[in-house]
């Protein structure tokens, strides 16, 4: 897994609540059996004026000029500012894959849908939770200042604005630790293989039917 320690970059807006995973990456692109290459179709239906197809080059497709992330001032944005319940809907990990491949390293929102939140960490994408009022403030500042840059510091758990204002955020220690060090979850869990075997043995005695093979 990709590590995340601290990142400074231009903030870009997705100024809606309940942005769902179909919006982040429409289903036709889920037909890929690869993990990469979803960035060009991130927010496809909002970003382009035509309908996107899998395996199609996006060069030359008509851009939606009214979609903020297409504005010159948000080019190269790597921190996404958005509203509550971001990433709701399906469990597709293609959503964080698309955001990451687009170039986002962190998201800032008042809340996230659970599965999306969880999936993001596995892909080096940091979903930061800040109070709604603070998010409002960041939106205002971003709209007011061209090239508005934020710093997201995972070591200190802080978001720092261009004027030096600091907002602390929280997240659980396990996720923080894994992301900071880019740890492989599976490898970590397999260190507990003995505990898993012991559990399995006990379970087999208590509830043998759980081990009936599926044929």
């Amino acid at each position, binding site marked *: 897994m990709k590590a995340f320690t601290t990142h400074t970059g231009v903030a870009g807006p997705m100024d*809606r*609540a*309940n942005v*769902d995973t*179909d*919006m982040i990456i429409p*289903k*036709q692109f*889920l*037909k*890929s*059996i*690869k*993990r990469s290459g979803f960035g060009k179709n991130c927010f496809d*239906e909002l970003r382009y004026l035509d*309908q996107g197809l*899998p395996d199609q080059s996006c060069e030359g497709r008509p851009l939606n000029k009214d979609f903020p992330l297409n504005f010159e001032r948000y080019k190269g944005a790597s921190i996404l500012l958005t*509203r*509550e*319940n971001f990433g*709701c*809907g*399906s*469990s*597709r*990990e293609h959503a*964080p894959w698309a955001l990451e491949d687009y170039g986002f390293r962190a998201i800032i929102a008042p*809340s996230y*849908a*659970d*599965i999306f939140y*969880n*999936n993001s960490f*596995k*892909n080096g994408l940091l979903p930061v939770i800040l109070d709604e009022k603070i998010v409002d403030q960041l939106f205002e500042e971003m709209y007011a200042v061209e090239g508005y840059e934020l710093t997201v510091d995972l070591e200190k758990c802080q978001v720092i604005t261009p004027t030096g204002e600091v907002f602390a955020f929280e997240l*659980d*220690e*396990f*996720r923080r*630790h894994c992301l900071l060090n880019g740890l492989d*979850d*599976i490898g970590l*869990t*397999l260190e*507990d*293989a003995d*505990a*898993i075997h012991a*559990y*399995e043995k006990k*379970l087999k005695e208590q*509830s*043998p*039917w*759980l*081990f*009936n*093979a*599926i*044929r």
Partner: protein
Amino acid sequence: MTAKTLYDKLWDAHLVKQRDDGSALIYIDRHIVHEVTSPQAFEGLRLANRKPWRVDSVLATPDHNVPTTVTERASGVDGIADPVSKIQVQTLDDNCDSFGITEFKINDNRQGIVHVVGPESGACLPGMTVVCGDSHTATNGALGALAHGIGTSEVEHVLATQCLVAKKMNNMLVKVDGKLGKGVTPKDVVLAIIAKIGTAGGNGCAIEFGGQVFRDMSMEGRMTVCNMAIEAGARAGMVAVDDTTIEYVKNRDFAPKGDDWDAAVDVWRDLVSDEGAHFDKVVEIDGAQILPQVSWGTSPEMVVSVLDAVPNPEEESDPVKKTGMERALEYMGLSAGQKITDIHVDRVFIGSCTNSRIEDMRAAAAVVKGRQKANSVKEAIVVPGSGLVKAQAEAEGLDEIFTAAGIQWREPGCSMCLAMNADKLGEGEHCASTSNRNFEGRQGYGGRTHLVSPEMAAAAAIAGHFVDVREF
């Protein structure tokens, strides 16, 4: 001993290890796999030179990409016209074959939508932890199981370790008491719940659905409700085990038999929340007040009763919600104050993991019987949730009722629920759909989805617009 909720019991029984940092290792009993969210997980296993921990705990079936017409289905994977879909289904077959995983392949009569197949085959049982790389896995919670959707990295993790790294969620109780009115279905109950608590209402929670309404409900109905726990923001939804549960599981293919059955039933009887157990959040709804529901917007919380009108954003005080409503009205091509019964439908879709079980087929057929699809409706399709549902429905003659009415009877799969196969809405078309999501573009680019029960969808197919099925 302290009183425990059903979720507490399921969690405790599957705890392999509690770590100091608050995370835990949870043992997974059943892992269901489909073609969309698994290829990258299998690839990950291969790259790391890992093997599945317990292949006999895994069951796979393709559902999202499979075509639903008889002709396209006839020659199996080779017959799939869309080359990209074909590769994905083929990849699932290849992965299952090479890792030794049991798969109900495209034309196996047990194939179907993962969340229909799991309970129906007895692969998913009360008291189990069930995961699948699909958010509607919560459906299995109807069995009194802890079931939830996971991402692809977690699919790989569960394949490799039989465990999930998880954090205990909060306990939420949604209690619906009273008696449902005539024509009011489990779908209406869950839509009414989401309308009340919102799509983020259950974030961070496992929801237990309790109260008289759920005790009276069939297993199929409970599955419809648990299915949409995710639309209420909760990763897992569940219903306590009772006689209805046990009757349903009995004699299913993979259900325990003989002495094992008796022992299992003993254990399952305890899968209820103890008297006085603590819930972090409780929501109560009077079941008698619920009317047939229709969604008007682009989020499952944008729902009103069929007797209502499309709401007015001007009356919403929250500015973020207000702009959301305005945008939804624009996308849906509706205006505030328009009566729901004045909305015309272009297509009708009866199917999806929410409403494609035998009971749903029967309910829709009962409305359709002896009537004709309205000419203004371009296409109405009924897509059974699995090969077994299809066979049962055909044995009861339901397929003939639909086709006689001008409604198409299809092969099992996800179909127009998310339009990954050829079944989609055209731009601007309104659809009465029994699926679970009405997001922009969900059923096809520019398509407009209205979530309803199978009865309401069937009635709309006949009338050409939404009607109150109770008066139909």
